[in-house]
């Protein structure tokens, strides 16, 4: 049996866990055991998937026995399995952290009976989005994770969270509607929503139609990924959520958007039709985001702005659409998920130790808690891209790819990336100076907790442990950067080539759009009803029985 056929378990296991934890809502201990156990199991499975894909190549699973392009497929390739592993490491660490926080707090603030099932559903949605090879199923994956995130965002229902939650929900729903409109139009234009099939059929469309569909998908994903003109909602809504929730959102949700953008650019609409606007947008995302970060005095808001800013790096790598650029972007995504999540988890610890996440109220934390200072320092310099950390390697890869490309715009972006990196250093150095280095009495409005050192308990081990583990994982990304960069390079090569992906879904005889003439023969691997170029809309799937039953 091929291990790839177990891929749907990455979605099924968390959903099963959600059902179990929901049933066990009167027994917090059982909830914790079930959710952590099932998530660990998922992580093991995904590591196995990654190993198998590494050796045997891209594989696909047809769900419910419907053959593509009729049914929903899940595709495991190197990029998606890498994203799965990294996202599961993150979500497991954050889950343990949140459980630790809940145990330490006596579960006052967050109703834990809701937290565990919702969190697992969020993980299931993220896995589904990474695995799916069907555009509508991607929408369903997005909706699963978004609906779970609405609940997590407004956990506790306090005033600020409701206010932030409203912005978040409305913006997310609008982006989902845009995505759905795009899907409808793509279906109308091509008669299919299987991504591998679309990769072939979109190439046959009129360039104007194609551009329209392309832009609509990018705008929908751009809102989710928080790319500059569409990023306004993120710093507004993320900081108010509980620390572990913000951490997992910062790590995963925007990256799912980036992942979808990568698939759009490489699989559905290859070629460089929109690369110039994407590059401009990447530059603006980097600069505007980081300038916003410098203005903040709250650590969580500052980190939210750096999150927006560093999405720009990934879009930059993507927009170069060269193997080197894409490989660096893939590496950067893995690095940034880890680092940004660790920083938000550390901020949760800072809030706990110093009583606030506002830099005006903090000071002297380095002396109060040297371990906390270390935990902040490593991911912070990693984020800013100080050698030898993985942030430096990712940025170096991007800069090299940009210089290799050599166009004036790419060189401008290289300069912009360096400036953003320096400004990131400035932003995290401000946090370091104000929260960690200065004396507590130098703070503008020192938090009483800082002076009253006697009455505070130590930070709970269950919270420090996962944070430290994540920081170590971030350092491990540096140590194993060689194999990781190789993996990123391979996956970039595969994504730009598309052959492996399309063949794994549609079979060995599938036509390759890059190789065949654009208006060549009817695709051989597709049943006759699937390709009717003369009447591409609507009735293209006459004999397909209710495929959507599985959706």
């Amino acid at each position, binding site marked *: 049996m091929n291990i790839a056929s177990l891929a749907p378990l990455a979605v099924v296991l968390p959903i099963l866990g959600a059902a179990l934890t929901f049933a066990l809502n009167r027994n917090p201990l059982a909830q914790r055991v079930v959710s952590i156990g099932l998530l660990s199991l998922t992580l093991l499975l995904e590591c196995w998937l990654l190993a198998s894909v590494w050796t045997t190549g891209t594989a696909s699973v047809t769900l419910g026995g419907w053959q593509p392009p009729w049914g929903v497929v899940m595709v495991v390739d190197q990029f998606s399995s890498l994203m799965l592993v990294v996202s599961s490491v993150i979500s497991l660490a954050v889950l343990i952290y949140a459980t630790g926080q809940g145990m330490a707090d006596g579960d006052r603030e967050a109703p834990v009976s809701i937290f565990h099932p919702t969190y697992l559903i969020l993980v299931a949605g993220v896995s589904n989005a990474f695995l799916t090879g069907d555009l*509508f199923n991607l929408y*369903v994956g997005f*909706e699963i994770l978004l*609906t779970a995130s*609405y*609940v997590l965002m*407004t956990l506790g*229902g306090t*005033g600020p969270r*409701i*206010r*932030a*939650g*409203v*912005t978040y*929900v*409305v913006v997310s*729903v*609008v982006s*989902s*509607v845009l995505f*759905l*409109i795009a*899907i*409808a*139009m793509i*279906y*109308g234009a091509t008669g299919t*929503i299987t991504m591998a099939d679309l990769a072939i059929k979109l190439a046959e469309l009129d360039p104007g139609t194609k551009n329209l569909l392309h832009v609509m998908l990018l705008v929908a994903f751009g809102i989710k990924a928080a790319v500059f003109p569409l990023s306004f909602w993120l710093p*507004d809504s993320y*900081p108010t959520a509980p620390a572990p929730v913000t951490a997992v959102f910062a790590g995963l949700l925007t990256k799912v958007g980036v992942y979808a953008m990568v698939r759009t650019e490489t699989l559905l609409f290859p070629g460089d039709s929109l690369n110039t606007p994407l590059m401009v947008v990447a530059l603006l995302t980097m600069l505007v985001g980081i300038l916003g970060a410098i*203005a*903040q*005095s*709250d650590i969580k*808001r500052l980190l939210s702005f750096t999150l927006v800013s560093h999405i720009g790096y990934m879009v930059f790598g993507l927009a170069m659409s060269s193997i080197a650029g894409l490989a660096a972007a893939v590496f950067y995504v893995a690095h940034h998920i880890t680092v940004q999540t660790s920083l938000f988890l550390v901020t949760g610890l800072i809030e706990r130790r110093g009583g606030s996440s506002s830099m005006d109220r903090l000071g002297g934390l380095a002396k109060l808690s040297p371990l906390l200072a270390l935990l902040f320092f490593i991911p912070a310099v990693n984020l800013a891209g100080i050698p030898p950390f993985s942030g430096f390697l990712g940025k170096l890869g991007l800069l090299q790819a940009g210089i290799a490309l050599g166009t004036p715009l790419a060189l401008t972006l290289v300069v912009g990336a360096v400036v953003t990196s320096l400004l990131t250093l400035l932003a995290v150095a401000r946090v370091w100076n*104000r929260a960690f280095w200065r004396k507590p009495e130098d703070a*503008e409005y020192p938090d009483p907790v800082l002076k009253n050192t006697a009455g505070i308990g130590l930070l709970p081990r269950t919270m420090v442990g996962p944070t430290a583990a994540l920081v170590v994982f971030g350092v491990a990304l540096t140590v194993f950067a060689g194999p990781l960069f190789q993996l990123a390079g391979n996956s970039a090569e595969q994504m730009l080539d598309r052959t492996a992906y399309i063949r794994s879904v549609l079979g060995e005889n599938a036509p390759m759009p890059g190789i065949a003439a654009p208006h060549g023969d009817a695709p051989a691997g597709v049943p006759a*009803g699937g390709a009717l170029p003369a*009447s591409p*809309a*609507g*009735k*293209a*799937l*006459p*004999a*397909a*029985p*209710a*495929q*959507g*039953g599985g*959706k």
Partner: protein
Amino acid sequence: MSVNLTLLIVMGVLFACGIYLILERSLTRVLLGLMLLANATNLLILSTGGYAGLAPLFNKSTDPRDYNDPLPQALILTSIVISFAVTAFMLGIIYRTWALARQDDIQDDAEDRRVAKTPSFDAEDDSVVPEETSEFPVTAVTEAAKEGGPE
């Protein structure tokens, strides 16, 4: 492909009203706008299915071309369920906003306002050296600077 013009016009009106409503500040109106947008999108998906046909129940004697395309309807069903869940959640949030603040409007982010009002002058970074911090007397350094830089 034939398109039902009535459906298209209804869809256009729904989109227009929906977009108008989500630009309002009142949450209930925003919710209504989102619902209209979701339904307009459902109509759009429906119209991508092409002309109406027979129910897609398999029958050997029927020409495959006479069937209706079932996929858009399956998509719509999923999308209806999703928008139903989101609407229920929004209603919960709106009620909570009302319970907390006795108002239906979206409120501004207080921290945003505060950061926007912050003067560009930063006491920590921009002020003149506030006090003696080094072992070299400040006065000596500044006098040396006045005389044309340090020797």
